[in-house]
């Protein structure tokens, strides 16, 4: 209960370099990784086939969309906003790509992919403008655009379905191609994770996203263009949702107006499990990506373990609660250790 009296200070004084804050964050991501490893180990013990190359490939491919979406969502969450429209944006982009191939059968694949991404960018622009300019809470704005984008999708599709036969083999090949045994979409997702992670940790604008999410008022006083820093993540997130839509179309080959329905909560769940705080200002995209991988792996492991699919959602829910509880516990422990060690010095 009480803080140990003689506990060694985390850091003697200035010259040392142990970084409690960094360590806490790393512990956080290490925890998810550990859970992932544990889950894979148990499942493999139960059924050695789980770790077969083909199965791992399927798993990575399955995690691709969720990972890309979780990265974008994390950037929005870090600024203390949320984007609930990602599922609809993904659906709209996937359908747009399909329609393009139907209307222009000879269309080059990169051009169609770019168009899909741009559809997402446009949706992100709408979200970002509404949130940043009108200062309406993002939850409300994106709840609205969730239905609006989905409505546009339904109106456009009007019951139509676009099948793999309508799309060029080169495009569908993206979903199946591998490099060094790894699926191309998964590599793409990895590139997105690394690029976003690098931007957030190494650039002023990345740092400023955390500042805005931590305390918008303080960020404004420090001279940070808060509205712009709120706006940009929505655009990036929209573009990433567009990219995910393109990958969806390439992988599944069948798109209709219901693609991506209900995906938004799964995305938020992945980010939160990965340590991205819903109240902004903390978490990393690496954590969110691990969270997405963990959720996908749970989905794949439970049938192997012969757990009723019915339990899957309950387990995901439990995981979210555990993740949040863990964050709180770590924060409290750090605070107690610091106050105990620092009160006489400073």
């Amino acid at each position, binding site marked *: 209960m009480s803080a140990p009296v003689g506990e060694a*200070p*985390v*850091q003697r*004084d*200035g*010259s040392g370099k*142990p*970084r*409690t*804050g*960094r360590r806490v964050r790393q512990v956080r991501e290490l925890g998810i990784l550990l859970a992932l490893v544990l889950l894979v180990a148990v499942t493999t013990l139960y059924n050695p086939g789980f770790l077969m190359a083909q199965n791992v490939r399927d798993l990575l491919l399955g995690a691709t969309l969720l990972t890309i979406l979780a990265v974008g969502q994390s950037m929005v969450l870090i600024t203390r906003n949320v984007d609930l429209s990602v599922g609809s944006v993904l659906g709209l982009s996937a359908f747009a790509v399909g329609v393009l191939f139907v209307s222009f059968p000879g269309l080059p694949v990169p051009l169609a992919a770019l168009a899909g991404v741009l559809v997402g960018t446009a949706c992100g622009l709408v979200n970002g403008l509404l949130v940043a300019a009108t200062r309406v809470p993002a939850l409300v704005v994106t709840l609205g655009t969730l239905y609006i984008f989905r409505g546009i999708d339904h109106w456009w599709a009007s019951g139509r379905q676009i099948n793999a036969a309508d799309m060029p083999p080169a495009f569908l090949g993206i979903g199946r191609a591998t490099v060094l045994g790894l699926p191309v979409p998964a590599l793409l997702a990895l590139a997105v994770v690394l690029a976003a992670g690098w931007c957030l*940790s*190494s*650039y*002023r604008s990345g*740092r400023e996203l*955390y*500042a805005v*999410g*931590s*305390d918008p*008022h*303080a*960020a404004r*006083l*420090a*001279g*940070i263009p808060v509205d712009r820093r709120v706006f940009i993540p929505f655009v990036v997130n929209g573009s990433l949702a567009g990219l995910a839509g393109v990958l969806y179309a390439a992988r599944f080959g069948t798109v209709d107006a219901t693609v991506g329905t209900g995906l938004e909560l799964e995305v938020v769940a992945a980010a939160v499990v990965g340590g991205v*705080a819903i109240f*902004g*200002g*903390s978490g990393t995209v690496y954590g969110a990506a691990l969270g997405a991988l963990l959720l996908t792996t749970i989905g794949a492991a439970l049938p192997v373990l012969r757990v009723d699919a019915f339990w899957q959602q309950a387990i995901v829910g439990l995981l979210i609660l555990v993740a949040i509880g863990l964050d709180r516990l770590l*924060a409290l422990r*750090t*605070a107690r*250790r*610091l*106050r105990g*060690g*620092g*009160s006489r*010095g*400073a």
Partner: protein
Amino acid sequence: MSKPVLELSGISKRFGAVQALSEVDLQVAPGEVVALLGDNGAGKSTLVKVIAGVNPADSGTIKWENHPVTISKPGDAQRLGIATIYQDLALCDNLDIVANLFLGSERTVLGTLDELEMERRAQTLLDSLSVKMPSLRVPVASLSGGQRQIIAIARSLLGDPKVVMLDEPTAALGVAQTAQVLDLIERLRDQGLGVVLISHNMADVRAVADRAAVLRLGRNAGDFPVQETSYEEIVAAITGAADNPVARRSGRVSVSGTEEE
């Protein structure tokens, strides 16, 4: 007393029908702690905002190092070398100490954040203030109120100010934490900075302030050397104890009495 670095004279400020400040004078010398005292609504915060450029004065002159200057926006005050630490601290809880110190003025190399340089400079800065933090890489949310106040003050020093204004720096702090902040204020004075300290706490004022400038109803109500002035005299100036119906009446009676004779 050495030459004042900041000299205000005849400052007036009106908000609509409310005359918040009328003809207020204030001087701050290097290496001096001036306590700005007054009851609620006396105009302390308004005066600070005038100096900080948040609410520019309607009339009056401001002299900086003996040259007349105009301060019409916060940037003007910062450029002159006036740093203001507001009551609400303006720290980002989730960012670590280094990130908070450099927020808005991060050091970069080739466009990317130069964490090492920032950490080194932060350490030098805190060392120069004899401030010890358990680690520079913890989120400020986990610091105590006193430590947070110290970080907020340290942050304002990165711009090498000559005058630091503190708005109620000890308002929400415990005894030990208050002592830490007062120590820091003394160190700022020892480094030759002029400090303007707004406080309601007379004990703090007596502990660190050299002078007490009292405002009452938007006017100067006295300027006291703290060491040679009693607690009661200062409180009387703040509350206007000399300016109450009884005193006024007795004054009037005695005046009219002299007329009769």
